């Protein structure tokens, strides 16, 4: 075990335990919802909506958290990062989660993870204003944590590369001569820092405005503007989680193919395109708002078609090229990372279909939508995180997929594919999303979905338990490895900033 | 270490305390909210004042015997807020009349130059203020040392001219209780609350 060169592996490993546990827990909540829709469980609609809110907020938050941990870890190979910032980020995150869970399960808040104005204020007596305020305060805390994280990352990137433009590979794009090409992790980080900081600043603004409105209702809120800001924030944030986690692919896959993942001109262009487009995809959400000008709707359609495509194409294509030409070794890590790129690509297709205006009018409130985002989350971001976790405990040598690993992997992927297909099929058959009680003719699909979901939960438990056991064994094998790691993390992060200051 | 930690902490605590004070315990960030809290916590005595009602008669502003007086400030050529407020006022009058409440309601013009008794009665007619429970009046017979601006200041009403020759002002319903204390301020559309409070006190 010789990962001690990577800064702050202790903090990151701890964060991944947390992420894995919360992913598993939230999946169980998802399973409960699916079973309730299939009438295998009797859950009151009130509780169902609380669970839906917790599942949505919890999953999106954890996706962000695990993505942030992945990126922090690998950026540590290229720039010095201040350790304290990560702990502040993590503490704010956990504090936010406490507020959110309290608001849902103590305060009874069930306004959905998107806290769409004015729903939080109109509980019909189900929850007090305080619960809605606490929910939004929780989001605000998490947002502040992320902002601080990005400021640190951005600042160190700027110190090292002289500006975000350089870190985004503009010199390469413009064909200037340079021998200081930013590695893929830096390009990705620079893009995410820009678009997610913008999203968070705007998101924080709409959160505070909503809180003011809850506390002092005479301050009315412009509903259309609020909706725009909320969707902007939500979409960019969830997209950013993938764009952060994909760094794991860039940094780990080369170990398996034996070829470095290089920043090419096309690669840099793709990331710059994403940087612009990711901020406009949410427009397809507004296709139902006929009050918006037509050009916005049309742009929304085009953009949602093409937003992720260039990057996906470049990433997926390079991945294929790297794999083809090499003697790729398969273990749990590489299998999960490769499937994550596949899942991410496939997950974008239903989104593009949904983005077509004609279809949008019909599909947008069906289970087609959860079908689409569960694809790129379960088989995308979450698979990347699990792949990263497997890599963290892999050890020096790549072993081939062992029996248990193989079983967990197959269970997870098979379950996820089935679970998602059922959502998509139900969606195409116009089964609405976010309904606690389903009509009799939908029950069969719901039950099939439940069975697949149970497989996903099983596979996930396998990954998480394996990871925790891995950390423990690693500890025993190398004599208190975690604390050893933390110490060396301390050393490297203690040593590096001073280097950075001299730089 | 201590200075680095303790002093900022102290400063933050004191700053927090100061802002808490400055916002009446986070309850009031606007002057209007502050006025309402101040009045509710420290009612203000209303001096003896006479107004000229729309029929030309002089009427007292202060409550007589055990009655309660509700006051709003208007100007009769007001195009928007006053009209809406007058509608709410008539709603309150109707409910209180049904209950036989011991109350008088006065719409006071803060533009006595323009709002002659004739003008006032047009306004009264338009809103069905017939002078029994609810009348429209202007401050004319104020004494030397009691001016319109004193009156407005007592009630905390700010009037500023707008660009079309009218005024903007904070609209509200002001309650003078049977002891002659100005002790509550309500939103004009807070009809139920106003009615309940009046009935409680009489």
């Amino acid at each position: 075990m010789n990962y001690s060169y990577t800064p702050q592996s202790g903090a990151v490993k701890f964060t991944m335990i947390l992420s894995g546990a919360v992913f598993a827990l939230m999946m169980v909540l998802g399973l409960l919802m699916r079973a309730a829709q299939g009438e295998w469980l009797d859950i009151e609609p009130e509780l169902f909506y609380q669970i839906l809110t917790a599942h949505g907020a919890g999953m999106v938050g954890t996706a962000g958290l695990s993505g942030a941990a992945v990126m922090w870890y690998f950026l540590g190979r290229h720039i010095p990062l201040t350790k304290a910032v990560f702990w502040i980020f993590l503490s704010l995150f956990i504090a936010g989660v406490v507020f959110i869970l309290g608001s849902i399960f103590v305060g009874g808040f069930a306004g959905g993870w998107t806290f769409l104005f004015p729903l939080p204020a109109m509980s019909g007596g189900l929850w007090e204003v305080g619960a809605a305020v606490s929910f939004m305060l929780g989001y605000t805390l998490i947002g502040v944590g992320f902002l601080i994280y990005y400021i640190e990352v951005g600042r160190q990137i700027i110190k090292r590369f002289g500006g975000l433009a350089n870190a985004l590979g503009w010199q390469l794009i413009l064909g200037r001569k340079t021998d200081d090409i930013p590695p893929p992790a830096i390009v990705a980080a620079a893009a995410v820092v820009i678009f997610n900081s913008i999203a968070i600043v705007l998101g924080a603004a709409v959160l505070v405005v909503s809180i003011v409105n809850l506390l002092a209702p005479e301050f009315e809120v412009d509903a259309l503007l609020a909706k725009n800001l909320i969707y902007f924030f939500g979409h960019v944030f969830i997209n950013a989680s993938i764009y952060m986690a994909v760094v794991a692919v860039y940094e780990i896959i080369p170990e398996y193919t034996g070829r470095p993942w290089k920043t090419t001109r096309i690669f840099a262009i793709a990331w710059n395109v994403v940087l612009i487009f990711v901020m406009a995809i949410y427009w397809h959400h507004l296709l139902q708002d006929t009050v918006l000008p037509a050009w916005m709707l049309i742009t929304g359609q085009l953009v949602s078609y093409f937003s992720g495509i260039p990057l996906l194409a470049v990433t997926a294509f390079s991945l294929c090229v790297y794999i083809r030409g090499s003697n790729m070794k398969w273990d749990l890590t590489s299998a999960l990372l490769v499937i994550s790129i596949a899942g991410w690509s496939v997950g974008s297709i239903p989104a593009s279909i949904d983005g077509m205006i004609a279809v949008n009018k019909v599909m947008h409130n069906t289970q087609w939508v959860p079908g689409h985002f569960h694809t790129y989350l379960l088989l995308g971001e979450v698979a990347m995180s699990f792949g990263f976790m497997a890599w963290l405990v892999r050890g020096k040598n790549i072993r081939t997929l062992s029996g248990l690993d193989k079983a967990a992997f197959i269970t997870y992927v098979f379950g996820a594919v089935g679970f998602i297909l059922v959502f998509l099929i139900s969606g195409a058959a116009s089964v609405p999303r976010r309904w606690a009680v389903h009509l009799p003719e939908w029950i069969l699909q719901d039950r099939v979905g439940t069975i697949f979901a149970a497989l996903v939960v099983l596979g996930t438990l396998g990954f998480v338990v394996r990871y925790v056991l891995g950390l423990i064994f690693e500890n025993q094998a190398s004599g208190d490895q975690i604390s050893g790691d933390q110490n060396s993390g301390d050393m490297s992060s203690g040593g590096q900033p001073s280097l950075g200051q001299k730089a | 270490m201590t200075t680095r930690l303790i002093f900022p902490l102290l400063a933050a605590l004191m700053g927090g305390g100061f802002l808490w004070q400055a916002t009446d315990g986070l309850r009031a960030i606007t002057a209007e909210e502050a006025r309402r809290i101040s009045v509710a916590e420290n009612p203000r005595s209303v001096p003896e004042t006479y107004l000229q009602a729309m029929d030309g008669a002089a009427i007292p502003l202060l409550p007589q015997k055990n009655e309660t007086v509700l006051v709003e400030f208007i100007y009769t050529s007001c195009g928007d807020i006053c009209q809406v407020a007058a509608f709410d006022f008539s709603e309150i009058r109707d409910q209180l009349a049904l209950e036989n409440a011991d109350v008088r309601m006065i719409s006071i013009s803060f533009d006595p130059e323009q709002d002659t008794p004739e003008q006032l009665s047009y306004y009264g007619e338009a809103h069905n203020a017939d002078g029994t429970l609810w009348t429209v009046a202007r401050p004319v017979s104020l004494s030397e040392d009691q001016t319109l601006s004193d009156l407005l200041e007592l009630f905390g009403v700010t009037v500023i001219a707008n660009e079309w020759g009218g005024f903007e002002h904070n609209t509200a319903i002001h309650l003078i209780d049977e002891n002659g204390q100005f002790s509550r301020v309500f939103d004009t559309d807070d009809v139920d609350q106003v009615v309940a409070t009046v009935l409680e006190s009489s």
Partner: protein
Amino acid sequence: MMFRYGVAAVFMASAFALSPFVVSDPVLHVLVQIPLLLLSGGLVASRITISKDIAYVYLIIALVTLIYWMLPRSIDAALSSTWYDVAKFVSLPLLVGAPLALSWKHIHPVLRGFLKANAISMLGILAFLYIHAPIRICNSYLVTDQQNLGYGFFFVAIALSLYWSWPLIFGAPTQRPPQRTRSQHLSYEGTSSMSSHPAVD
């Protein structure tokens, strides 16, 4: 040095000169007069150095005072009471502008970035509320002027975000790290488990 004091004096004098006009125009009041007062305080203090130990106290004093003057009721009070107006002329330069300038260089860069982001967010919030609020937020100002102020906040937010983010994007000319960092960086690669992973460059 004299020059800075001169400019500060001019700012202060302009702020005084604006007094009769701010009564009827919140944009002048909040987006011209108050910034002038802040800048005059900041300019006077900008070259003085203070101990790092006390920097965060100064920062807190500045933030608390600034928050106080962001309350609509304080703005109203400054218009209706001479005492509050005097307090405004004294406290904005002395308790906000100056301490901010004094402490700024000692504040951790991450916190500085956060404060800037927060300022932009806050201006957005004010714009959002002031443009749309159906109520009068300041008793002393007309609703239309209040909306103008909201748009003013919006434009300031845009301007500040451009001003602050421009150097982040284009930055200083590329500074190649000195050799030491570079070799350190490579040696990380060298000690890594991925002997199969060639150096990135």
